[in-house]
Every structure is written in C-alpha cells, then in structure tokens.
C-alpha cells in the first residue's frame, strides 16, 4: 500500500513539475565577469548591460553573475552555471574563450555566448563583440574639427582591437582637421604610447602626464580606468574617455566612447526565448547600437557636434566607410587601395598603423 502511495505521489509530482515548470520558472541567464561590477571600465560596462537586461526582460528571465572570473577558474564557474540549470551563459572576457568552448561541448543544451574572442562552435556557442572603432572614429573626427592636431594616446595591449581603434581615431582626426582647414603634420597627428596592460592606474597617470608635458594637446584614454583622463585634466589638457562616460571623474573629457552591451544582451535573450537563436559571430556597430557616444562636454562647439552627429547618423544607417581606401600605413605604403574597403577579416587581424600615427607597435 505504502509503496503504491509513494509511486503515485512521485508520478503526480513529476507530472506537476513537467507541466508547471514552463509556466512559473523564468529562464535563467548567467554572466561570468572579468573583474568587479564597479571597476569603472570593462566590467562596469557589462554590468550596465546586465542591469538593462533586467529592466527590459526582468519578468521573463532570472539573471545571475560572478565577478572576478579569471582564466584559472573560468571553466569551473561556467560549468557550475551549466549544471545549475542556466539556459544562457555569457562569458565576457577574452580569457574565457577556451574554457567556454570546453564547457559548451559538455552541455549541448545550454547556450553560450563569448565576448571579444574568435572561437565558436556550430551548435551552442556563439561569440560577440561591438565595433568600438566606429565610436573612436567619431571621437577623432570631433577632435580634428576642434583643431587638435597633436594628440597623445595612452594605448593598452598591442593587439588588433586597440590597433584598429587607434587607426579609426586617427582617420577621423585627419578628416576633421582637413574639414576645419587646420594645417597638420601628416606623419604625426596622434602619438601612441603603450601601457602593455589593460588597467594600471599608476602608469596610466605617468604616461598621460608624460604626453601632456611633451606638448600633446589632447589625451586619448584607452585603458580601463579613467586615470589617464584624470591626469590630463590635472595638467590642463582635454581628454577623450573610453569604455564608460568618464566625465564625472574627469570633467575635462570632451566625450567618451562607450560600450553598450545591454542591447545585445536583450536581443540575444529574446532570440533564445523565441527559439530563433543560432551560433553566430556578431559584431555590432552603431547600426545596432552596440556602442555609443557619451554626451559632449559643454566646450564642444555646436557646429562640431552637428557634424559629428551627422557622421554618426550614417553609421547608424549601416554605412561604414571608415576604412575605405586609399589608406596608407606609417611607411607610406598603400594598405587599402582606392575603391576598396577593409573587410571584417582585415579589421579583426589588423597589425599595422595608419599614416599619421607616431609610435610603433611593440614586439
């Protein structure tokens, strides 16, 4: 008798669970984050994306995240989420790439999205990034229109992402200078120094001060803390912020180029909810609002703003001619001939600097 009762209970419970689960349980979404949510750089930008996701789809999904997921424990964290029944897992830094691939293979029913890498699979792991270079181009264009012709850039690691950004900034800068009829040295409008780190506040300060003391008239921050912009302000030199809007810490920042991950997260989750998600390599620009430009500093003239926003409107329509030829590299050699445009593949593997950049890519 007792046995039967137990059996009946089990059957009832299972049936109940199976049918009620989709009605009550929200889909679980997890994020593995590189650093802390208030690091004022990379992870803060992702966290803002998570907040946006919660705001937009909080009634349909349950969101969790883990901070400081470094390479060594990435696999364990991702596996933990997969085992705990999470349906979508975002791995948000380059070093999560290989662990993500391994865990994705073991959990074919879980969807993985990896940020800033180049690996994916054909079943359940895609990757995504956004076209920060478009925002950098606009920031450079603004600086050029305002007549800054001797920019100093505090660059991070010498890999294609920052290199592409420096090139786009410089292309925009030269375009702006030409339109503003400001004479400039075509070999040297943007001097680049390398931090060899993504964040290192002390040396960011040191480098920004070094550039300011050498007479550079604008400091371009590319590292993950606002410190190079702060140091520029202290030296009385304007700055262009990076990653998030830095104007609260560095009031001299003319504009900041910002990540805007939230729209991507909402879109991906919606696709998964609708059952239309497929592994892809997404690279979103202004056309899909993957990046944004912060509000301008009060000192940016109205005429300049108008021109920059007009250029932005083109990018929003998906018209991206930033790397359209002819484009020469530092030695004067034509890298992109007239009538051609750099392909995404060219951009993703870029290892050369355009004419106008002073400074080498370190070995």
């Amino acid at each position, binding site marked *: 008798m007792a046995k039967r009762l137990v059996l009946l209970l089990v059957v009832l419970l299972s049936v109940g669970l199976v049918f009620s689960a989709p009605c009550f349980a929200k889909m679980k979404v997890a994020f593995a984050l590189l650093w802390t949510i*208030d690091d*004022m750089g990379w992870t803060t930008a992702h966290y803002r994306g998570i907040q946006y996701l919660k705001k937009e789809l909080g009634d349909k999904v349950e969101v969790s995240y883990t901070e400081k997921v470094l390479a060594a424990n990435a696999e364990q964290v991702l596996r933990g989420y997969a085992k705990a029944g999470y349906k979508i897992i975002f791995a948000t830094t380059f070093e999560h790439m290989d662990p993500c691939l391994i865990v994705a293979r073991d959990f074919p029913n879980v969807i993985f999205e990896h940020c800033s890498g180049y690996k994916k699979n054909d079943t359940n792991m895609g990757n995504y990034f956004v076209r920060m270079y478009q925002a950098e181009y606009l920031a450079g264009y603004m600086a050029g229109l305002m007549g800054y012709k001797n920019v100093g850039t505090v660059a991070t690691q010498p890999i294609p992402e920052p290199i592409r950004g420096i090139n786009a900034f410089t292309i925009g800068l030269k375009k702006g200078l030409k339109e503003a009829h400001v004479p400039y040295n075509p070999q040297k409008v943007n001097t680049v*120094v390398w931090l060899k780190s993504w964040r290192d506040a*002390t040396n960011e300060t040191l480098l920004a001060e070094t550039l300011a003391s*050498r007479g550079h008239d604008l400091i371009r921050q590319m590292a993950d803390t606002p410190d190079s912009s702060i140091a520029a302000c202290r030296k009385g030199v304007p700055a262009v912020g990076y990653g998030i809007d830095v104007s609260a*810490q560095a009031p001299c920042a003319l504009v900041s180029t910002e990540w805007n991950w939230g729209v991507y997260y909402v879109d991906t989750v919606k696709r998964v909810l609708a059952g239309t998600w497929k592994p892809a390599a997404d690279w979103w620009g202004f056309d899909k609002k993957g990046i944004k430009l912060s509000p301008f500093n009060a000192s940016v003239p109205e005429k300049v703003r108008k021109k920059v926003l007009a250029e932005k409107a083109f990018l929003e329509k998906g018209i991206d001619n930033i790397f359209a030829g002819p484009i020469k590299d530092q030695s004067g050699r034509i890298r992109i001939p007239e009538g051609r445009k750099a392909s995404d593949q060219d951009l993703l593997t870029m290892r050369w600097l355009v004419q106008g950049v002073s*400074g080498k890519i370190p070995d």
Partner: protein
Amino acid sequence: MESGALFVAKISITSSMAVLYATIGEIFAERSGVLNLGVEGMMLMGALSGFATVHATHSLWLGVGVAMAIGGVFALIHGFFAITLKVNQVVSGLALTLFGIGLSDFLGRPLIGKVSVKFEPVSLYPLYKIPVLGDVFFSHSLLVYPAYLLVPAAYLFLYRTRYGLELRSVGENPSAADTVGIAVARLRYCYTFLGGVLAGLGGAYLSLAYTPGWKEQMTGGQGWIAIALVIFAMWDPLRAAGGAILFGFINAFQFYCQAAGITVVPGYILRMLPYLFTIGVLVIITRWEAARKRVGAPSALGIAFEREE
C-alpha cells in the same frame, strides 16, 4: 612644454614617493628583526582609509593621519603574530598582504569612482626659484616634501643616535640587547608599527595625491617593490631613496622614450634591471659572510626572539 630631461627627473620623484615611504618603513621594521611581507596590504588599507576619510570629511590631513594610523594598526597585527606568538614571519606577513587586499577590495567597493579633494602641487617658496633643481624638487604636492626630511632623519636616527643603536642591536643580536636591558619585544613592536605607519602614508600618497581616488588593488604591486628595495638598498635609508627614485626613473624613462619615439634600450630590459640588481645583492649577501656583515642584513631578521631565562 617643459624640457624632457627635467620632466623625467621630476616625474621620477612624483612616481616613486609611495614606494619610498613604504621602503623606509620596512627598513625600520627589518632593522629591528621583523620581516613584514604585509607592505602591500598595509599600503592598500592606508590608501583606502585615507581616501574614505577625505571623502567623508574633506579634510586631507585627517585622511593622511587616519591612513597612517590604520597602516600602523595593520602592522601591529603582524607584530602580534611575529613577536608575541613567534609564528613564522613570512607566513604571517603574506597573510597580512592577502588580508589587506581582500578587506580593502570589500570595504572599498562603494568608493570606487568617487571623486573628492586631493593634494595639489604646491611650489615651495623660495626654494622652487632655484634654477633647474627648484622645478624638479620643489614643485610637488605637500605629501612629497616630508620625504626630503624623512630620508636624512631616518639615516641619522639609525646611525647617529642611541635609539638607532638600540634598534640595530635588537635586529642584530637580540640576546645581547636583552642582556644590557633593552626591551626587545617592545622595540620590535614600536618599529613594526612605524613601518606600518609609513606604509599607510605611502598608500595615502597614492589615493590622495598621485592617482587620486580609490581603485581595487591600486598599489599595483608597489608594496612588493618596496620589499625588494629594502634589499636593493642594503637596509640603508639613503640608498633606499636613491633606489626608489631609480625605480621611478627607469619606469618614467622607458615611457618617455616611447612618447618621444626614441629607442635606446628595449623597455623590457630597462624594466628588468632593478630586479636583476636586487637578485645580485641577494646572491652576494648570502654567499659571502664578509659582505653580509658590511651591507648590513640584520642577523636576526625574521627570527623570533626567545628569551633565555
């Protein structure tokens, strides 16, 4: 636009002050026989508490005072383990660093990205009018100038006063010091505390003057550089000042070369030099007894004192 050499000289000083304070502090602690590897943790706690105080009260000097006090209190934790409980000092010091990193990360979270008042450069009248030197040495923030007094004072204290002699004797031969009536444990506590106070000041220099604001692990390993510098300086405050500025100079110089587009020596090699030199000193003092005596690694460094009754 200032001249390159002047600028590099000046920024060598501004960028090395935190390390300098921490190094002088660690020299005092190690001279008394207490090896404190918790410098990084103490600096971080100093940086955080200093900034938190300034953020709450807008009083810069109160912030500096709190940073020094917290640094000292942290050092006393190590003192308790190393001197009273006589545990392994390496383990206790490492624990202090890990504790300091974790606690400052945790407590500092609401402060990240906050802006508050900071030490601005103040030209020291009339010294800044001295050609060349004035600009290099006397146009810094007010947290830099005390170092100019601290370094010679530490030197004179160590080598020219009775207290300095007692301090050194405690680190060299605590039994003998005890025999002549010096309170070994009390002195070790005092100088460990002083070491923490100066490490806290170094931290405050970072969060209130050099890279104002709080960021997780903002010392970025400067505490470890300080510990290396103590050996590099062979436990001598004057050499420590030279060493700290040399560290600062090498770093500033390689960035300057990048900015100016000059290639002299690859930056990697330049950055390695101070550490190679530190290893060199370590080899020398462990290999040759005579050298060990001359350069003055305290004989009882890292060894707990057991009183023979």
